[in-house]
């Protein structure tokens, strides 16, 4: 039976086994490939074995660095071909059955013609790639605005301020339906447009908004385009929000937009008395279009304003009523031109309550005065408008922005204490400006012209009434005309880059100051041509850069004319010792120019305490700065450290002094030498902590400054030192909770040549925890603690605790609840010192408050 079975098996399997034994016959071939002419061995020549009739490769190898190859494979050489090929040489074929072993192959040079396919690299950084996101796939029940959804899209980050980043890069344009309607104020869109009205978001990476330079000037910044749903176009869409809270809080918001083929309109309103800042209409800078960065700053002579509170943020100490309106409209003019109008207005009434005690240290005495129950009421009205025309064609770019910025800033301040009085100040600013950029392209060269022009006038006035009913007046009419025009050229010479920027600036200032009906007038002009050549050299481990700004400033004031020529070079070098240590050093010399803000005759009353005398003088001063820095890193241990030492100083031929009269401080400059020297040592150490999935960091710093003040005709040299240490720890280990904790301590000390010393200490800490409880429900907890030294060794603690939550009801409605200052702190006080003046400040704080909001979308 067994034998039968065996025969049967053999019978069935024999035909199967037979070919196997034939094929598995081991075949081996080896050889050497050389170049025909030089007989040098050829490396990486392809050796293939295939059937004559088919392309199917059965075995393969390539030559080594000595031109040798070897193939071992279980196959039969019959009707197989050996193919030897290499780019640039003629391919050889040999019948495997015929070849002698070992093979010796001589390759003959022959042009290989491949079927080429040329890919023009998509101009990355020129037009850029577009990434498209479908909004519906990212939106969850928790989201309201397009900003909320943008946050979730991979690579897109929306900052606290509303600014958007794509892969860490700032946007250079924010388009809606392909049009740049909002300019830099795109926070209006992200904070207002409902994601339900948006079909898609397109991110254009490396977007160069100026078409004419798209292949010349690289842009690494992305742009975002919001594509609206069809049913959200050509009709009005928007949202409304209302909130109410205790004590007597309100909040209201409304937004409406309409996008049609030729016109677009975008309108918002926001108002509250909750202390919340409304920064939708904030302008985010973009790096894209040309910008003349140098701008004209307007002096503020009247210094009456509620002081800004240190550390805790204005929204805790200000009691406000704010209303903001904005409207943007776009009209398409022809194919390549857009005409945009923008108008932003805001009315902000703010009240604050504060007490202070200011002490001036004099040579042999101290002068101090108290301001009690200082109540400030500020009424700020802003009206900004812009009309811009932009033409963006392939060879031509034109951009003209005509703007006006009007600010009406009135402050009433009443104070009791040492000098009870009321002050009524008005600090208006009216500015009209025009920016013009024109670019024409000729082949690969461009000719461009950038120009900025500005006319501004700032009427300022101050009326002081003391407790006897005696009044004092100060009126200032300041007007200015400013223009700045520049061009830039650069070229590379070996390892040297040579760059030159040149242009000119012209300004005219006219100031009329009237103090108690004594009018004075000063007019001056400045003409300033400038050129800044710079040279850079770089190699693997050494880099050096030299800047050589040269400028000439020509002043003329009434019949005085004066010219100042200045060369203020600076040098920098950087040395990479190895992968862990980098060293750098820099040095610069500067010239201190005359202080143009003091170009007036007689005096100006800044506020009820201070009077400043004008000082028209062309003496210049000099300044220096040099420093070294060291960086260390050990990435494998996630450890980073750096340290910097910087010396800086100045010497001027004028001395600032204060003279104390009965009820005024007279600030004035006199001829003389004043010096200031400073030393700054700073550093940081940070380490990654795996257990927390977070980091631990420490930032120590030390500064010392030697200078002098002049009070009542006596020089008082002093030395001040500040030590500070900050620490930070973060933890992201848990998916439902993130923790961020920071602590800081500062100690400062000022000494007047061994006579007096003033010290101050303060500590602050902050803890932020976010809990994600369920998808539509989120809780945020914020705890701040400040420990401030109010007088020597007398400390006071302040605790601020906030809690907020939000819950989504359905598609159109949402409720949210915010509780602030839960432990009901009512005042916040601290003490600070600067230039031998100490100020003790005490602010009234918004008490515990609760706000509930309901929002609706139409």
């Amino acid at each position: 039976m067994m034998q039968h079975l065996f025969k049967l098996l053999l019978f069935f399997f024999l035909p199967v086994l037979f070919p196997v034994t034939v094929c598995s016959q081991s075949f081996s071939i080896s050889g050497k490939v050389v170049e025909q002419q030089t007989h040098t061995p050829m490396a990486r020549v392809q050796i293939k074995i295939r059937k004559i009739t088919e392309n199917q490769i059965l075995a393969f190898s390539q030559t080594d660095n000595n031109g040798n190859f070897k193939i071992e494979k279980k196959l039969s050489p019959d009707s197989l071909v050996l193919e030897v090929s290499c780019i640039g040489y003629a391919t050889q074929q040999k019948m495997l059955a015929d070849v002698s072993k070992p093979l010796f192959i001589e390759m003959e040079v022959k042009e290989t013609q491949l079927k080429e396919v040329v890919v023009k690299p998509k101009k990355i950084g020129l037009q850029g790639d577009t990434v498209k996101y479908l909004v519906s796939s990212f939106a969850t029940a928790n989201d309201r605005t397009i900003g909320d959804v943008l946050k979730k899209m991979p690579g897109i980050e929306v900052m606290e301020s509303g600014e958007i980043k794509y892969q860490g890069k700032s946007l250079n344009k924010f388009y809606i339906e392909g049009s740049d309607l909002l300019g830099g104020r795109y926070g209006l869109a992200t904070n207002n447009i409902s994601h339900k009205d948006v079909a898609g978001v397109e991110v254009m990476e490396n977007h160069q908004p100026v078409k004419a330079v798209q292949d010349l000037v690289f842009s690494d910044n992305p742009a975002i385009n919001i594509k609206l749903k069809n049913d959200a176009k050509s009709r009005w869409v928007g949202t409304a929000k209302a909130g109410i809270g205790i004590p007597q809080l309100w909040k209201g918001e409304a937004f409406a937009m309409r996008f049609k083929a030729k016109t677009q309109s975008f309108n918002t309103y926001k108002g509250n008395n909750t202390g919340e800042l409304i920064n939708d209409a904030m302008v985010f800078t973009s790096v894209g279009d040309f910008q003349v960065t140098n701008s004209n700053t307007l002096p503020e002579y009247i210094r009456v304003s509620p002081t800004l509170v240190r550390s805790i943020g204005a929204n805790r100490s200000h009691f406000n009523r704010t209303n903001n309106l904005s409207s943007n409209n776009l009209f398409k003019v022809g194919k390549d031109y857009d005409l945009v109008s923008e108008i932003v207005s805001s009315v902000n009434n703010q009240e604050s309550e504060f007490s202070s005690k200011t002490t001036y240290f004099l040579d042999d005495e101290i002068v101090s005065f108290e301001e009690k129950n200082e109540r400030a009421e500020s009424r700020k009205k802003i009206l900004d408008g812009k009309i811009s025309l932009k033409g963006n064609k392939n060879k031509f770019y034109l951009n003209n922005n005509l703007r006006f910025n009007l600010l009406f800033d009135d402050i009433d301040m009443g104070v009791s204490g040492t000098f009870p009085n009321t002050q009524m100040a008005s600090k208006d600013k009216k500015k009209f400006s025009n920016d013009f950029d024109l670019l024409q392209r000729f082949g690969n060269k461009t000719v461009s012209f950038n120009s900025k022009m500005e006319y501004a006038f700032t009427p300022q006035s101050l009326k002081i009434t003391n407790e006897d009913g005696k009044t004092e007046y100060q009126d200032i009419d300041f007007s200015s005309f400013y223009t700045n025009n520049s061009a830039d050229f650069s070229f590379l010479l070996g390892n040297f880059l040579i760059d030159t920027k040149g242009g000119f600036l012209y300004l005219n200032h006219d100031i009329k100051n009237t103090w108690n009906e004594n009018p004075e007038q000063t007019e001056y002009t400045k003409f300033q041509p400038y050129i800044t050549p710079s040279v850079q050299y770089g190699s693997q481990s050494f880099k050096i850069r030299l800047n050589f700004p040269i400028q000439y400033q020509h002043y003329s004031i009434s019949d005085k004319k004066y010219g100042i020529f200045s060369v203020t070079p600076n040098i920098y070098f950087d040395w990479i010792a190895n992968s862990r240590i980098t060293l750098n050093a820099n040095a610069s010399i500067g010239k201190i120019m005359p202080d143009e803000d003091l170009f007036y005759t007689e005096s100006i009353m800044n506020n009820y305490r201070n009077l400043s005398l004008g000082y028209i003088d062309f003496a210049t001063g000099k300044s220096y700065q040099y420093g070294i820095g060291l960086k260390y890193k050990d990435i494998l241990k996630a450890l980073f450290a750096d340290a910097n030492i910087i010396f800086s100083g100045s010497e001027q031929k004028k001395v600032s002094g204060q003279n104390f009269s009965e009820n005024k401080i007279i600030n004035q400059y006199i001829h003389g030498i004043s010096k200031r020297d400073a030393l700054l040592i700073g550093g940081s150490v940070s380490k990654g902590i795996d257990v927390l999935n977070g980091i631990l960091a420490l930032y120590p710093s030390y500064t010392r400054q030697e200078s002098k003040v002049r009070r009542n005709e006596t020089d008082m040299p002093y030395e001040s030192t500040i030590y500070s240490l900050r620490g930070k720890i973060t933890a992201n280990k848990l998916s439902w909770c993130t923790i961020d904790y920071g602590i800081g301590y500062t100690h400062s000390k000022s000494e007047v040549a061994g006579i007096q010393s003033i010290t101050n200490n303060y500590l602050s800490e902050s803890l932020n925890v976010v809990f994600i409880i369920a998808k539509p429900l989120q809780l945020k907890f914020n705890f701040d603690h400040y420990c401030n030294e109010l007088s020597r060794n007398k400390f006071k603690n302040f605790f601020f605790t906030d809690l907020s939550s939000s819950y989504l009801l359905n598609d159109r409605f949402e409720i949210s609840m915010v509780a602030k200052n839960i432990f009901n702190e009512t005042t916040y006080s601290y003490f600070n010192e600067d230039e031998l003046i100490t100020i003790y400040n005490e602010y009234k704080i918004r008490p515990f408050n609760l706000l509930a909001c309901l929002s609706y979308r139409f």
Partner: protein
Amino acid sequence: MKIIYFLFCFTFIISGTNLVSNAASPIDSAKLKCTYEFLYLNDSIENTYSSSELYIVQIGKDHVKSYFYKTFYRDSMESTPAGINELTNMVNTFVKEPANYGKYPPFLSRGDFPVHIYKDYKKEKIITTDWISSHRFTYEEKLVPQDWTIIGDTMTILGYSCQKAQCSFRGREWEAWFAADIPVSEGPWKFSGLPGLILMLKDTQSHYSFELKGLQQVNEPIFMDISKKATKIDRISFLKLLMGAKGNEIVAMDLAKVGITPNTSTGKKYDYIELDYK
């Protein structure tokens, strides 16, 4: 405080504008230049792909260099006057803006895979340069071609008849389509060893793919640039660093140095091309 702010800006302007080209020397001359379209799944949970990127392979006699065009473009910008000038202007504009106080100029960063791979057939090694945040790394490994199995399937890509081959490489299974008519044993990334150029390569999970879009016979120098700043490391340690919590910490510390707290560190939602570091 003003002094500190000024110094802060100054340091940034300086470090930002110090972009004079590194004098890299040519190591070989490329005869063939291949341009692949590269796609990767940047979120394996949401299933979203990256935008396509170009991946260039320069093939010379003894050296092969491969890199992402985006990284190259960013690097080469630093070597032209117009590029440096533009970057310098961008940095200057950036730091002058008070709103940017405490922020790192974001446009100085590179793409997702700032990897340069240099194959050296003479020395039979691969040198890789890479970045984590603002820090450079370099590591070496032995050049060993993959152990391929050729399968019968054929397909035409860019007019070339291609055969299919499979291999397993560092934790992923790969499928390649190669053209025997292009007699170079090369491909993208660290792949080589087939009897013809790889025209298409992807892993079986479709997390990564390379597809040839351009092929040119050229005569251009292959530059090698290994910065002195680069930390020397071994491959496994580097990948552990890049993909692990330490990689996030490095980014967080770089940001913290300039006063920024990253909102959350959710980690990477994709895994690396090579998985054997785990």
